């Protein structure tokens, strides 16, 4: 339990975080927000990126790709 508590404390406080680790964290937040946006509001992303009209099935696949994109971005290849 001590190790788990210590890990959560490190996660909350980010003690001793280096600059390179900070950039990785920021990238993580970016793809998290991005994935959430695609999942919840695919039409906004469609409009911003000027994508072809999605259609009902296309929208579902796009939402699905948001989840898989995050998974892919996290554990890529």
């Amino acid at each position: 339990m001590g190790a788990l508590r210590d890990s959560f404390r490190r996660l909350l406080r980010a003690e001793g975080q280096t600059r390179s680790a900070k950039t990785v964290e920021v990238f993580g937040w970016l793809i998290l927000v991005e994935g959430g946006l695609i999942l919840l509001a695919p039409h906004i992303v469609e409009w911003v990126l000027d994508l072809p009209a999605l259609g009902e099935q296309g929208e579902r696949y796009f939402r699905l790709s948001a989840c898989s994109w995050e998974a892919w971005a996290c554990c890529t290849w």
Partner: protein
Amino acid sequence: MLYVVSGRMNAEGFVFASLLDRPLVPVAMAILWHLGIVPGTLALAFAIQDFGSFLWTLTAWLSEHRPSAAAVLERANTFSDDLDSPSIRAMQAIYSAAIFEEIKMFQVVDKLAALFRTGLLPLGRGESADRLRQYAVTAPRRLPESERRAVYQRTLGIGSENGVDSNREFNNLWLRFLSAVKSTAAQDPGTSQEPLRKAGLELAANLSLHGYGMAYVAATELQSHMREMLDLLSDREIQSAAGARDIWQVIELVAARDLGGAPNTTRLRALQSSGATILRWLAARAGGLARASTAPVLNPRERHLTRSPGASPAPSDHDLVRAVERWLAASA
């Protein structure tokens, strides 16, 4: 989520893995776009995002692993950065650490970290603050003062000479070698240099014996600790936060204000740099001293040695004689 958690927990391996992974995204996107699977704008957005963030992380990673120019210069003037010739070079690192201990460098850097933690060192949220925070967090991994002092005592007899495993012979052998160098440099060419060869050989044997095993491991740790301290003390922002202009002024100011008095840094630095030069010369020549030869050991007019690329420069005989003179003057 993995990126956020790994970044916050400072997972060095994940940072490196992401440096290998993210540059591949533009290639993957180009292929998907070419096959008509992903629209061009989406592929471009993901490619820019991943490659841009990769460049950002790479820049930060490189700057963390590249010491500042001032620190490199200071290191070059203080201790050798490699331990290729194991035992005697290890002793050179331990000798430098022992003098840095007298200079109170270890205590000063610990004090700076403590002052920063309590908000008494005016540093912003920049790179210097990160480095000081990182130093404080990794402190438990380094040798504590009691263990460092035990290493100095075991290997060089510095500290209490009455310890059971103290290297009690070192001081006499060291002074005998220095005296032999001084008298050999003053005598006419052609005179026998056998006393110098014998004194050098005995000192080298003593150092090899005590710089073996755990001492070598301790030397490696001390070397990395000294490197971190010099990097921090060379940081301009930390220097100005401490109200100083260079490394030694930071030490003098902090030691005088918080550690019960400033050390004589000029004298101790002379002892450190000249002592390190003498040990480097001995490390380079120990093998030659061990071989029976009629060739002279010392040629004080020799100013340059051939240097192998990448290796620390070995001091010439002229450097040795000057270092001995400086050491004797500083220790008087």
